[in-house]
């Protein structure tokens, strides 16, 4: 009887495990770039962040070889601070790495409708430069897969110029790049 029961359980186990055999599956994780740029400047300005490998890998929520990286959306959250005299700002974001540089977007933000401390969101997908998106995704993929050359700095900047030109901008700009990482598990 014991043999019969054991045989039945083993057969059942084999049936089950064979149904759940390892299969390569494309899964999707995220890498959310989220940086706050403090701006207190008269005229043109540019604030930069250089990303380290850890800055990226600490933010991802998966393990596995990345097949591709894509950007789902880019947006900025702008807050005007006390003392701001700029009526508008011509904003841009820039992606630079390995001697290659592209503006991710340019956007004129009218600040006259802002109240101090109020945050306004601008989703910028239609204004994105595909070349900058490609550079960003390429570098994120290299970092996650461990092929990034650390001598090639990976820098994301936010800059702009105020209108009128001699006015002072006192604001914070939060740049959010929601990216997806397609990875395979088996």
């Amino acid at each position: 009887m014991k043999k019969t029961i054991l045989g039945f359980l083993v057969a059942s186990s084999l049936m089950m495990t064979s149904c759940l055999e390892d299969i390569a599956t494309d899964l999707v994780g995220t890498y959310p770039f989220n940086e706050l740029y403090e701006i207190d400047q008269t005229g043109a300005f540019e604030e930069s962040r250089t990303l380290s490998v850890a800055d990226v890998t600490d933010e991802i929520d998966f393990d596995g070889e990345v097949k591709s990286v894509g950007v789902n959306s880019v947006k900025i959250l702008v807050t005007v601070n006390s003392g701001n005299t700029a009526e508008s700002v011509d904003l841009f974001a820039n992606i630079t790495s390995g001697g290659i540089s592209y503006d991710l977007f340019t956007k004129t933000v009218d600040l006259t409708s802002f109240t101090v401390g109020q945050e306004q969101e601008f989703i910028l997908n239609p204004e994105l430069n595909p070349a900058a998106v490609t550079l960003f995704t390429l570098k994120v993929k290299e970092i996650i897969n461990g092929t990034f050359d650390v001598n090639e700095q990976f820098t994301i900047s936010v800059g702009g110029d105020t209108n009128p030109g001699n006015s002072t901008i006192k604001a914070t700009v939060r740049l959010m790049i929601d990216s997806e990482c397609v990875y395979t598990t088996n």
Partner: protein
Amino acid sequence: MKNNYLKLIMSSLILICVIPFSSVQAQTLDDYITRYTGENGPGYIKPAVESISSNMNSGWYRSAKIKKLRPQFYLGVVVMGAFIPEDNKTFRATTEGDFSPRQTVDAPTIVGSGESVTISGDGGTTYTFPGGADINFIPLAAPQLTLGSVFGTDVSVRYVTAPIGGEIGDVTLSGFGIRHSVSQYLPDLFPVDIAINYNNSTAEVGDIMKVKSWIAGVQGSYSIKILNVYGGFAYEKGNADINYTSSEGTNIDFNIDTNANMRATLGLCLNMGPVKLNTDYSIGAQNVLTVGFGIGI
């Protein structure tokens, strides 16, 4: 690495199916659910819920013969496997978040193709729907005890529990069933035993997920020496409640209703003294193959 409760939910769903035999695949399956915390979540998970529900509604009987008043029992293990139909492999998924323009496409469900589906949006953006586990068959196993009979009625229970660790707690599968003989009201010359049944099953993962299902029907059986041919028609339904707060503070609340379905079952039971070996096949929303082994009188 961040915790992701939803990933644990799906692995727990699968773990429910393999509690008695295997934990090999659970860790791998942890990764499947990351993408679907929003409106696409129910559509992605639903086929697995239907499989678990169909499985839980299977294997409850191997004969419709219930004496009017006589000690009867069955103690055994029931192994069920739901076959995933092709139309459960994809669902209509819609892009989420700030991706634009919003698009709806056919994407793999949790049991669908392993290949992801990527679409293009404004300004070089992309949106990817993940692949599934490419599963054609989801198994479930449970011990079962049936006791009777009083006034032509018997009751069955199933129960199995296993800790899965972490903050989730235990995975528990439980079930209850009652049957009542119709044959006792029919003339003795009627050759087929007939009974009606109602069964209710629950699979719980800690306090964050509960899959419930029920089935009610009529069953019949006919004995030829040591062989028992049995079958029946039934109506079944299931649902799942998923409610948790992610580590990022997002509250996720899914309620997934499976479609109400009819099912037909046909099976054979070999009675070798007290030892009973049976197999049956059910045709319904998801077809289910059942194998049972136990002892009883």
